[in-house]
């Protein structure tokens, strides 16, 4: 079982990112579940989404306490949330950032998803879309195949710029 926790802010598409990752994993022939933690959400508040990926059907509904991977779509949540809480020893971090940051020694991958979205003019109501480009970064990390990542994106979104953004994130991911 591979467990992922996604940190974002309400309205940034963290839930959709979780769904895209689950769909891509299913296209890879695996089982997956994706779910947000539902609290008193509102736009801008820190929110958490979860994804489980496994080779057999997933029977667990409870929240993920010890993730293998933490994705931070909005680094500003790190001022108010301990995003590394429960991260397994050897677990990885994927950060949407222009520059590397030390994440207490955890292997950290960095990609400027916001920059890519702005460059590709992927915006909704003035906010850059992060959830399709992040799939490219996850493919580069080997979580899903790039073929399935693209398949998931095109199934959910018709605008080809989503795929271009994912390809850019694949190229620009820094380990």
């Amino acid at each position: 079982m591979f467990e992922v926790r996604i940190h974002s802010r309400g309205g940034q598409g963290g839930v959709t990112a979780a769904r895209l990752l689950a769909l891509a994993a299913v296209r890879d022939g695996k089982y997956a579940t994706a779910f947000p933690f539902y609290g008193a959400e509102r736009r801008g508040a820190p929110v958490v989404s979860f994804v489980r990926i496994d080779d057999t059907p997933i029977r667990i509904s409870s929240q993920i306490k010890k993730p293998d991977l933490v994705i931070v779509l909005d680094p500003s949540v790190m001022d108010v949330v301990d995003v590394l809480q429960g991260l397994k020893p050897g677990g990885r971090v994927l950060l949407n950032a222009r520059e590397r940051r030390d994440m207490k020694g955890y292997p950290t991958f960095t990609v400027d998803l916001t920059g890519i979205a702005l460059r590709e003019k992927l915006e909704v109501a003035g906010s850059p879309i992060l959830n399709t480009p992040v799939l490219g970064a996850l493919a580069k990390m080997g979580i899903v195949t790039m073929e399935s990542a693209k398949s998931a994106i095109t199934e959910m979104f018709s605008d080809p710029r989503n795929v271009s953004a994912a390809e850019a994130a694949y190229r620009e991911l820094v380990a």
Partner: protein
Amino acid sequence: MLTVATGNKAVAAAVKEAAPAVVAAYPITPQTEIVEQIAEYVSSGELKSQYIPVESEHSAMAACIGASVTGARTFTATSSHGLHYMHEMVNWAAGARLPIVMANVNRALGPGWNIWAEHTDAFQERDSGWLQVYVGSVQEAFDAVLMAFCIAEDERVLLPVMVNLDGFLLSHTMQPLEIEKAGDFIPPLHLPHAIDPQNPCGYGTLTGPDEYFRLRWDIERSMRDAVDVIRGTQERFARRFGRKYGMVDEYRCDDAEVVIVAAGTLGREAEVAVDLLRDEGTRAGSMRIRWFRPFPRLDLSGRDVVVIDRDYSFGFGGVLAKSIAATEGARPFSVIAGLGGQEVTYEDIAGFVRNRQPGRELWFGVNGDV
């Protein structure tokens, strides 16, 4: 077609396949996505139903009753307070022998105001004459809705069916979903007592004590006959679509010395606890209650029983634990857990089994047992 969808979308997709003539509904969290999606299907022409947006759940069920009584296939969805607002009509639907199908997204009752999963909302309708099934996955939600129409509309049953799915834990959780083409799986509805709108006449006015008693007995007779209809429908479903369902979903029970009984997602999580306990050397098994009405028989002889209730009947006890004590003569360790969406993990469930005390009741997360 294999996709990834929430429980709510799965219910809506199954309703599209069943193609009811009438859908009447009122939105309520966490069910709203079901009726939103159905409204979109109707709006886009993918579903040729009459969609009646009503002003309350009481009216939603009243509209379903009015449509169903003419022999039209009907569907609605609700949750929690919405279910209880329609309570009078819920009873009427069963008494009038109308095969309405309703999805209920299980949610706690306020106050305290709470939108998260609990089964008390639907368990409170247990004496209404509705059949009730509880599902444990997104796929099972889809499958249960398809089968619910077959079972409700069978002439040996002709009672409404409520398909229950846990709020958020299923309604908003995305899992793989195979969207089946129903084709002729659901036979056309033939309601023997349908009212012809061109020549309207029917029963349902004042019924004297003798006749009323016979009508009530007939509901119970159909509820008993429903067990065979459920089995037959589930077997037909397995042959056609390859997924098997029972009255109860058993997991590693054959040689089990202790059995965990639960409903909904807790029953699925319990299977992971069973694997954990087996690795420790405890011969554990799980019985996930799917059908709650009619209530199933469980093979519990010579076994310890741990019942997890995501519900409570105040002044009495956990509904499942008390039901099993009554029907099987068991002395379960009764655990009250998950109320109002309380987080319960498979590790917690394994702990209930390790520390079981037959005959006692534990409120998980509350200091001391009762």
